[in-house]
C-alpha cells in the first residue's frame, strides 16, 4: 500500500516537472497568439535551437550561467530578427500565411541544425546544478532535476506576472493584445511590441529547452514536445497566460498518471484527446471568460 502510494507520488512529481516544461512552451504559444493572432509552428524548433545554443556556448568554455543567459538571449534575438525580416509581413493577412511562414522558418532552423553532423547524431547533456542529485524526504526520493524545473518555472511565472502588471512594456504589450488600434492611438509603438512578443516567445521556448535538458537530454527531435503545448494552451483557453501554465501542468500530470493506468504507448494520444474533449465540453477553456 505504502509502496503504491510512493510510486503514485513519484509519478505525480515527474508529471509536474514535465508539465512545467509544457506550460512554458504553452506560455510562449499564447504570448505569440495574443500579440500576433497566429499559431506559431516553430516554437519547438526554437526550443531545440535554444538548448543547442547553450550546449555550444558551454562547450566553448563559457561558465554555465553565462551560457544560459547567452543562449536564451540569443533565442530572443533570433525571434526578434525573424519577426523583423519575415513574420511582420503577415500582419493583417489571413491566418494561413502566418502559419505557413512559421512552419517554413521552423524547417529552416531544423534543417540548419541537422546539417551539422555532430548535432544530428548526438545526445547532449547540459550539466545544470543539482540536476543529478537526489534529495531524500523520508521515504520519498526527489530528483534534483525535477525540483529545479519546478523552481525555475515558478520563478519565470512570477517574473512574467510582474512584467505584465508593472512594467511599461508589459502593459503596452497587453494593450496591443487587447486592441492594437486603440493601443496605437494611445501612443504604444505597436510594431515594436510585436517584435517584443516574438522575442519573448522565443526566449521562453529556449528556456523550456534548457529545462527539458535534464529530463530528455538535448537532441534534434526534442522540439516535438512543442506539439503537446498546443493542448496545454487550449486547455488554458488559448488567451490566458496563467491558464496556459496551469494547462501545461495539468496535462503533464494527467499524461504521467495515464502512463500508470493505460497500456504502453497509448499515453501519447492522451493530450490530443484531451484537447478535443476540452474544445467540445469547455470551449472557452477551464474557468476562462468567453469574450467574443
Amino acid at each position, binding site marked *: 500500500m505504502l509502496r503504491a502510494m510512493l510510486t503514485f507520488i513519484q509519478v505525480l512529481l515527474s508529471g509536474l516537472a514535465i508539465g512545467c516544461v509544457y506550460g512554458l512552451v504553452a506560455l510562449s504559444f499564447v504570448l505569440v497568439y495574443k500579440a500576433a493572432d497566429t499559431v506559431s509552428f516553430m516554437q519547438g524548433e526554437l526550443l531545440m535551437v535554444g538548448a543547442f545554443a547553450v550546449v555550444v556556448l558551454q562547450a566553448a568554455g563559457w561558465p554555465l550561467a553565462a551560457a544560459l543567459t547567452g543562449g536564451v538571449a540569443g533565442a530572443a534575438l533570433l525571434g526578434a530578427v525573424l519577426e523583423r525580416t519575415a513574420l511582420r509581413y503577415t500582419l493583417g493577412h489571413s491566418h494561413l500565411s502566418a502559419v505557413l511562414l512559421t512552419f517554413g522558418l521552423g524547417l529552416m532552423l531544423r534543417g540548419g541544425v541537422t546539417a551539422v553532423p555532430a548535432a*544530428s547524431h548526438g545526445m547532449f547533456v547540459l550539466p545544470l546544478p543539482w540536476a543529478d542529485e537526489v534529495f531524500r524526504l523520508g521515504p520519498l526520493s526527489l530528483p534534483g532535476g525535477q525540483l529545479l524545473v519546478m523552481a525555475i518555472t515558478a520563478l519565470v511565472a512570477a517574473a512574467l506576472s510582474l512584467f505584465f502588471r508593472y512594467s511599461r512594456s508589459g502593459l503596452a504589450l497587453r494593450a496591443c493584445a487587447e486592441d492594437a488600434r486603440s493601443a496605437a492611438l494611445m501612443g504604444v509603438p505597436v510594431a515594436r511590441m510585436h517584435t517584443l512578443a516574438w522575442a519573448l516567445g522565443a526566449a521562453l521556448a529556449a528556456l523550456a529547452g534548457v529545462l527539458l535538458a535534464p529530463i530528455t537530454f538535448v537532441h534534434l527531435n526534442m522540439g516535438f514536445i512543442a506539439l503537446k503545448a498546443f493542448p496545454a494552451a487550449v486547455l488554458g483557453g488559448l488567451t490566458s497566460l496563467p491558464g496556459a501554465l496551469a494547462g501545461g501542468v495539468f496535462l503533464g500530470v494527467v499524461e504521467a498518471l495515464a502512463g500508470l493506468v493505460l497500456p504502453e504507448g497509448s499515453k501519447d*494520444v492522451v493530450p490530443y484527446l484531451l484537447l478535443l474533449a476540452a474544445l467540445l465540453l469547455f470551449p472557452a477553456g477551464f474557468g476562462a471568460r468567453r469574450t467574443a
Partner: protein
Amino acid sequence: MGVPVKPGRAEAADIAARNDSPAAAGIVRASFCRPLAGPALAALALPLACLLLGTDYALGQATLVATYAIAGLGVVLIVGQAGQIVLGQGALVALGAYAEALLAAVGWPPLLSLPVAVALGACGGAIASLPARRLGGLYFGMSTLAFALVVEEVLTRWSGLTQGAAGMLVPAFGGGGWRAQTPLAQFLVSLVALALAWMACRRLLRSRLGRAWRAIREDEAAAAACGIDLARTKSAAFILGGGVSAFGGAFYAHWIGFISPEQFGLMLSFELLMLVFLGGVGRLSGALWGALVIVAVPQLIAVARDALPGEGVGSAGLETALFGAVIVALVLWRLRGEKRRGGSLR
C-alpha cells in the same frame, strides 16, 4: 464595381457569391480565357517534360501532381471557400489510403472500395471539425491538428490491422481483370479521377452550399443574418473536403504501392496547405498549380544539392532547410504581391 464601396451587410453575401469572378470589366474575357489557358498550358508542358525527363518519369510525376491536386481540392473547399483553417488534412488523406489498402488486402476491387474510402474521409472530417464547429477560426486548426496526431498514432500502434510503422503494400489500381501498371495508364486514370473530383467541386461551388461558404468567409455575422446555419455549413466544408482528400489518398495508395503512417504526418498536412496557398486558395485551379510546385520543389532541391559540392551527412538537413527557405520565400512573395494589388488573400 469600379468604386470600392464597403457593402452593406445585407449585400455582403451576394457580393461574396460573385467574388470569385474578377471585377465586371474583366468578367467576359476572363471567363473565356481562364478555363482554357490552364489545360492548354498543361497540354504543352507535358510533352516537353516527356522529352526532357523521359516519358515514364514525366508521366509518373504528372500522376503524382494530379493526385496531390485531388487532395488539395479538399483543402480548397475548406480554406479557400469556407475560409476556415485546417492543419491536419494529411490524416484524412491517410484514412482514404488505408481504407483502400485494407479493403484491397481482403480482396475488394478498387472501384468498390473507393466510395468506402471517401466515406471514411468524410467521417474523419466530421469528427475532426466537430469540437471546434461553434468556435471557428484557428480552433479548427487546433482540433484538426489534434485529430491528425491521434490518427497517426493509432495507425502506428494498431499494428494488428495496419502493420504499424512497417507499412502496407497496395496492389495497382484496376478492375475486372485489368490493372493500371504502366505509367501512361496510371496517368490517365488519375486524370479521370481529377476530372471527376474537379467537376464535383465545381458543382458544389455553384450550389447553395457553396454560396453559403463564401458568405461565411466574407462576413460571418452577415451570413448568419441571412439565415445560414454557421456551425452546420462549416462542418459541411470539413466533411466534403475530407471526402475529396480521402479520394486523393486512395489513389495515392495505389500509385505509390506502399503506405506507412509517417507519409501522412504533419509534413503532408502542411504541404497541402502550402499547395493551396501558392495556387491561390480561392480557385479550384489553384490546387493544380500548387500541386505542380509542391511536387517539383523537392526534386529541384535534390538536383540543386547534387550540383553543389560537399556530399555528406549534412545533406538531408540542407534539403530540409532549403525546403523551408523556399516556403518562406514563396509566402513572402505572395504577401508582397497581395500588398501591391491592395487586396486581401482569398
